């Protein structure tokens, strides 16, 4: 048992830190999120040049062959910098599916992700499904002729719509969960498809999100998918979806602790300098204890983040317990730290000018992404 970082891991962290210091000041970020594009392609290319887009992929696939701890380091540092470029969406989530795909698929897609040529988004949520990964109406049916006879075993027609697909406006490719058989919320009968966003029948409504990112409502109308688009076995995708969702949660937890650490430091600093009643407000015990509670929430979140990232390889039950437990802690801490950072900054905390509100908004969105505290508490309880 060991909780220390290797030299290589520390080096990785330092590299990202200096990249963000040089290229990702708060004003730069503000300009990026206000632009029409909503992200910086230049940054994306630099992130690629640093090798970060290859972190979890094997050497054979052209990656750095790192594990969850390195992904955690990247996500945590990006959380500190409030990076909007879709690292987790492309590399952790879609990359998580692709690195378990066929040799052919890996060779086709991974080089484009690692080089920064393509951004990918995971289209899983549906309006009726809330956080349930198996509540899927989008259908992929085998293509049939006008006579109703099946023409080909491996051509699918995709129909339906996905909601709030994070990073989809920037993406060239989507990974879509679709029902190839079974009832609406059944875990059997779900398949994963790679969908080219420019394919006929795919339309999107793109929009900005409250945390400075972008997302889309995606509509599929008779989109034809060829045999290469199916990831894994038809109808058997659910366990993989859960695994990759847990890996994504682990990365989101890391992003969250990065953001929390910035908020806590900023709040303590502010309370040391802001004077009221003739003294720094940090001298008031009621505020001191609030900041201690924020600090404890942060430390507990760090513990859970390390824990989940170290348990991703364990059995499904252990992994679910780890991921759902961690997400509950991170959701609660995000709320507590976000709200109190604003509170202790007083009126300044309410302004768009100060970075505090921006971290607060990102943390609030991390709370809902891949399931909020209520959802994961129930899930935790179902396996414990």
């Amino acid at each position, binding site marked *: 048992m060991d909780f220390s970082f290797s030299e290589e*891991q520390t080096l990785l962290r330092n590299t990202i830190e200096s990249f963000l210091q040089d290229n990702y000041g708060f004003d730069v970020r503000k300009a990026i999120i206000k632009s029409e594009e909503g992200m910086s392609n230049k940054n994306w290319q630099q992130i690629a040049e640093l090798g970060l887009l290859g972190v979890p992929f094997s050497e054979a696939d052209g990656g750095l062959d790192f594990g969850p701890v390195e992904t955690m380091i990247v996500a945590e540092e990006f959380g500190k910098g409030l990076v909007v470029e879709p690292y987790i969406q492309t590399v952790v989530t879609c990359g998580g599916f692709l690195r378990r795909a066929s040799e052919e698929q890996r060779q086709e897609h991974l080089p484009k992700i690692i080089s920064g040529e393509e951004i990918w988004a995971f289209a899983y949520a549906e309006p009726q499904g809330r956080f349930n990964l198996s509540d899927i109406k989008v259908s992929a049916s085998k293509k049939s002729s006008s006579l109703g006879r099946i023409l080909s075993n491996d051509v699918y027609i995709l129909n339906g719509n996905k909601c709030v697909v994070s990073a989809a406006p920037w993406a060239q490719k989507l990974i879509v969960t679709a029902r190839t058989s079974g009832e609406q919320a059944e875990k059997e009968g779900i398949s994963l498809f790679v969908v080219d966003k420019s394919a006929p029948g795919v339309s999107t409504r793109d929009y900005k999100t409250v945390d400075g990112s972008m997302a889309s409502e995606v509509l599929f109308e008779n989109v034809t998918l060829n045999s290469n688009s199916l990831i894994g076995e038809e109808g058997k995708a659910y366990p993989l979806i859960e695994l990759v969702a847990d890996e994504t949660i682990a990365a989101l937890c890391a992003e969250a602790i990065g953001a929390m650490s910035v908020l806590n430091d900023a709040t303590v600093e502010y309370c040391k300098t802001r004077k009221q009643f003739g003294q720094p407000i940090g001298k008031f*015990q009621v505020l*001191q204890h609030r900041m201690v509670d924020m600090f404890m929430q942060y430390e507990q979140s760090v513990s859970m983040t390390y824990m989940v990232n170290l348990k991703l390889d364990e059995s499904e039950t252990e992994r679910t317990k780890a991921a759902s437990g961690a997400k509950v802690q991170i959701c609660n801490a995000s709320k507590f730290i976000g709200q109190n950072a604003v509170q202790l900054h007083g009126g300044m905390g309410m302004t768009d000018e100060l970075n505090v509100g921006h971290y607060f908004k990102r943390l609030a969105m991390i709370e809902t992404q891949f399931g909020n505290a209520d959802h994961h508490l129930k899930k935790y309880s179902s396996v*414990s």
Partner: protein
Amino acid sequence: MDLDFTQADHDFRMEVREFISNNFSQANASGQNIEKYHEVTSDQMKEGILDWHKTLYKKGWLAPHWPTEHGGIDWSVTQRYIWDQECANAGTTPLIPFGLTMLGPVIIAFGNDRQKDWVLKGILSGDDWWCQGYSEPGAGSDLASLRTKAEKVGDHYVVNGHKVWTTLAQYADWMFCLVRTSSEGKPQQGISFLLIDMNTPGIDVKPIITVDGGHEVNEVFLEDVKVPIENLVGEENMGWTIAKFLLGNERTGIAGVARSKKAINKLKEIANSEFNDGRPLIEDSSFNRKISELEVDLMALEYTELRTLAKESKGEGPGAESSILKIKGTEIQQKISELTLEAVGNYASPYLTPLSVRSYGSNYPEVGPDYSQGAAQNYFGMRKTSIYGGSNEIQRNIIAKMVLGL
């Protein structure tokens, strides 16, 4: 970074498990066991506690956190974690911390050679039962305002004063005591750390019965108590430094993760046996949610403790961060007792008088199911945990000052 257990760790776990199952006897150790609490007399309780202590002493496993030259063992962090887990799972008697956790490390750090010899030996053998003379009626959280006075007269100190909340002083052979040796400068500057023989004339121990009906804490009155000068630890007037060192050690291990896990399992069993609207209580979504929240909180604490232990094993700590372990550990212990009280429902009510203080209103034989016995008393008693060892508010002050720099 990894959570792996090596083959050596697995072997160690098996060795420990076998040792515990061969050597720990529930029958000899009912003292601290809440289910049996009411059946035990005061003297049996002391014997029960010491039984396991002496077994571990013989084995050489009593003080893993001490340096090896003083009888400690060089167990790794992982091994200590495994040891705690296995002890909790087997429900072994908690060891009394006053000598092992509190005074031992103080003597190792500040004591002279003679003190190292006799004090450490007596702690390990169990021949000397120590108690902690810290709090006074006017000095609780503000410990430095203590007034128990020690005046040097010839080769003795003469001690006069009044200590309170002295845990298990009724069994104690010795007391380590904070006394005022000077009234100059800041209150912290005039405090000394004395070792006092409880059999010295002038010492009077009076029981305090607490809300759970138990007799654990006492008042200790000291009137012209003669203490030889060689019983001073460290220099005169450096007691505050020692006191702070001791409180820092007291906080590690206070998280009680393994025992809380076991208590949650018991809570779940109770919630499985109790019925609500015709269904087991554990299936009630409101109750189930509270248990899950508690489990997640405990999981986070477990890894916070492991991180702290890992730091400690590299010689960095325990820092003020260990206050987190005290705050969260006690909050969780209290919450478990609260939910256990809720779980037993109506049968929380019958009063279970501890035999050791039975004097009025006893209910024998017990009323209600076995698992409800003592649930309420335990809940009442657990309120002490956020008050003792530096109240949880004081712990927050420590973090605010030492970690956040406020």
